[in-house]
């Protein structure tokens, strides 16, 4: 039985199993070695709890990571895994995805790994729409190398390498991905198991590249970077969770909402605006997705979570296989004929 039966495009071609799986089945025998309190733990647990629900054969799941604290992730998953080199996981995973339609390939990467050294592979993977699920653990710091600022750190950040404050304007990873033609972009908080699970599920079900930014706390080198989103009260005012097709409201009882402002978006009190002025999320509208990404400011005044964008377009790996299949169907693989080519001559001994 293969997942194609389930009609889930993102899982097409990946063998499924009827065996009951639990989170435990996805725990490897390797001791988890993150710092106490690291956000990576929760993401790992969420992933281990979530995967059984896909019903895939475990051996057909692969985690490929780069280098960084978060990139140790594959060791802890009882699946196949490769802990590769810094920034190159998307490229390696592309090779794997192209050659193997029967695998569910996940990339685990950090803000340094994906956006600093690996930025180019990331944007090319997204534009190609390779069938990979890319989890970007954004702790806004280089954890593994002990605390230098990263491409998502706020301007002026004081770190070991920037004692006078960092100078770089940070990336907005969602804006960058959208500018790079990403067909799926989502965001979730490490601590929000339900929200993260929902985004992971949609990513898994999406055919093509799915980038999921996960805000992850690094208690050692950037503690509390996302605390304002974890404080229950603040979270109500700041977290804008979007659902495709639904009006964008947030707050405890939806007391806030998102409305248009110029070519962009603004936040308003639901009470102050006409219900019809509330923007309805449409994950297929790139301009809206982009505007939502800008609503998510670096200082976390507001943070959009959920799925910003989902668009259907052919994936690179499916198309590459289709070309090979078409070539095979059209022309026999006759090596001798190939070697002879058109122009030969024969010497008689």
């Amino acid at each position, binding site marked *: 039985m293969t997942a194609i039966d389930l009609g889930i495009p993102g899982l097409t071609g990946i*063998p499924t199993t009827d065996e009951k799986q639990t989170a435990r089945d996805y725990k*490897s025998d*390797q001791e988890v070695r993150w710092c106490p309190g690291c956000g990576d733990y929760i993401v790992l647990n969420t992933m281990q709890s979530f995967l059984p629900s896909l019903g895939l*054969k*475990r*051996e*057909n799941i*692969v985690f*490929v990571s780069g*280098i960084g604290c978060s990139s140790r992730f*594959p*060791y802890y*998953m*009882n*699946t*196949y*895994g*490769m*802990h*590769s*080199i810094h920034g*190159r996981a998307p*490229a*390696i*995973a*592309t*090779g*794997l*995805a*192209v*050659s*193997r339609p*029967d*695998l569910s390939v996940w990339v685990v990467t950090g803000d340094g790994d994906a956006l600093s050294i690996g930025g*180019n*592979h990331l944007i*090319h993977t997204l534009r190609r729409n390779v069938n990979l699920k890319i989890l970007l653990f954004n702790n806004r710091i280089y954890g593994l190398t002990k605390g230098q600022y990263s491409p998502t750190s706020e301007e002026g950040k004081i770190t070991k390498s920037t004692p006078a404050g960092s100078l770089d304007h940070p990336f907005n990873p969602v804006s960058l991905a959208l500018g790079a033609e990403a067909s799926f972009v989502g965001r979730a908080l490490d601590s929000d198991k339900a929200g993260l699970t929902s985004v992971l599920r949609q990513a898994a079900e999406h055919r093509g590249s799915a980038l999921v930014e996960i805000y992850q706390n690094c208690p050692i080198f950037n503690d509390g970077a996302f605390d304002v989103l974890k404080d229950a009260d603040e979270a109500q005012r700041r977290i804008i969770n979007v659902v495709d097709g639904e009006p964008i409201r947030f707050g405890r009882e939806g007391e806030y909402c998102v409305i248009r402002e110029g070519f962009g978006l603004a936040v308003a009190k639901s009470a102050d605006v006409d219900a019809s002025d509330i923007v309805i999320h449409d994950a297929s509208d790139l301009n809206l997705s982009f505007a939502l990404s800008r609503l998510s400011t670096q200082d976390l005044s507001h943070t959009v979570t959920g799925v910003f964008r989902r668009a259907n377009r052919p994936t690179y790996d499916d198309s*590459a296989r289709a*070309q*090979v299949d*078409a*070539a*095979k169907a*059209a*022309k*026999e*693989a006759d*090596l*001798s004929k*190939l*070697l*002879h*080519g058109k*122009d*030969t*001559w*024969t*010497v*008689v*001994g």
Partner: protein
Amino acid sequence: MSTETRKLDRVVIRFAGDSGDGMQLTGDRFTSEAAAFGNDLATQPNFPAEIRAPQGTLPGVSSFQLHFADYDILTPGDRPDVLVAMNPAALKANVVDLPDGGILIVNTDEFTKRNLTKVGYDSNPLEDESLERFQVHKVAMATLTIGALEETGLGKKDAERAKNMFALGLLSWMYHRPTEGTERFLREKFAKKPDIAEANVLAFRAGWNYGETTEAFAVTYEVAPAKLNAGTYRQITGNTATAYGIVAAAQRSKLPVVLGTYPITPASDILHELSKHKNFDITTVQAEDEIAGIGIALGASYGGALGVTSTSGPGIALKSETIGLAVMTELPLLVIDVQRGGPSTGLPTKTEQADLLQAMFGRNGESPVPIVAPQSPSDCFAAVLDAARIALQYRTPVLFLSDGAVANGSEPWLIPDVDSLPDLQVEFATDPETFQPYSRDPETLARPWAVPGTPGLQHRIGGLEKQDVTGNISYDPENHDRMVRLRQAKIDGIEVPDVVVDDPSGEAKVLVVGWGSSYGPIGAAARRVRKLGLPVAHAHLRHLNPFPKNLGEVLRKYDKVIVPEMNLGQLALLLRAKYLVDAVSYTKVQGLPFKAEELQDVLADVIKGVSA
């Protein structure tokens, strides 16, 4: 006709003209005629680094040299016997190579004042005495071509563009070449533009007839077919042979191939060729850069395909970190380096052998990789198959060091019987009971190839040091030392054939050792000095790492070891270090292959020195 026909055993012709003059095509066609006729042959194209350098300038000159003979030859020839110069720039750039008495055929139409000044001729060399020492034939090729095509109604400019076929016709006549192939070729090539096809055929015939009917040429020449080994031959370039070797590796291993690559001169043609053969289960991915290219190849290998990446020197520099990952993860990977002139961007369209030490050592840590180098264009096929064998059998990245001369040069190739090709089938690990990610085959020291999707073999690999057998991360000091030595031992233990020494007389005291594309010139030089009565032995290395087991013994047998290289002595360094043999370098780094003549002199001097 009053023309005399002389028999020759070999001829070297060089066609030279502007990049836009179609010299590569002309040369290719003459080559095909020679091949069809049964000569042995070797060719060497030479084109400018610019796509289209300004017309009529020296940097814009493009040339094609071919050597054909009635015996087996080894090189495209040191210097032309016949130079065809389509314009003053082509003359100026190439005439230095023409020996005294050589035949010079010049297209006079281009020798205008303006064109002459452009390349710095103060006076017209066709009119002063500067070409006196050659047999000069002045032919108004453009005019004659236009004349011949008058009837066709083709514009003057279009008509004039067929003048290269005029030249080809003339030379075909001079050398008694068969002509049907070319006419057929032209009709096929321009199938969609029948008028152009006809024009080219007409120009070709006009050239032939010009030779036949004018009395300008007193002599024609015949080069009899060569007595080659029996079999079916074709002409092949090194890059094509490399691509075919990879196709063959796919077939013989029954594995899909994934080529992850990024275009770069002179390696791009391997991508171009392979992209045509998807029917052999070959996927080509043009990646965003060299690092992604090799990453994709390695990812594919991890998935159970034969991952291949192709590039030239600067690309190898970029790939080195990932080659290290392949060394650590012990996955099969074929890394093709078509060497070009360096350092840095260097001379992108020229040849060189200066990446050997980069291939050996260009990675952090102790990171050994096998190295295989082809010795001629057609040899790329067998050599790359052997590289694939090593990669698959030993689970290791393998460096394949081709070069610009081999890649673009061509020669006849005795097409092998497909069933005689080595069997490259490998077994994937499947047994969860016995599986350990870093256990080793006692023979090869290879670890198991356990591809994702195999039930029960879930495991994790990566770039951190691995514990022996289990493959878990290990920071244990003894384990690291052990693994470093195991990885080295695996490479050192690769089975490669003994090196065969060519010393017909058995009396040589001097051994010349070469590797890669210098095989032709060294071999030809060895033949020449032997003809002078000076015995010399020639050993040519296909395997640069590990070296053949008998190499030390071979080296120590001779009074003197000389190592000609197109670098500053890279193989010599390795031989000296490993065998403590006083191997002496002869080096030339001009972006050009050695000439048999110069090596002849070098060898003769050394041999005489030793006997003295």
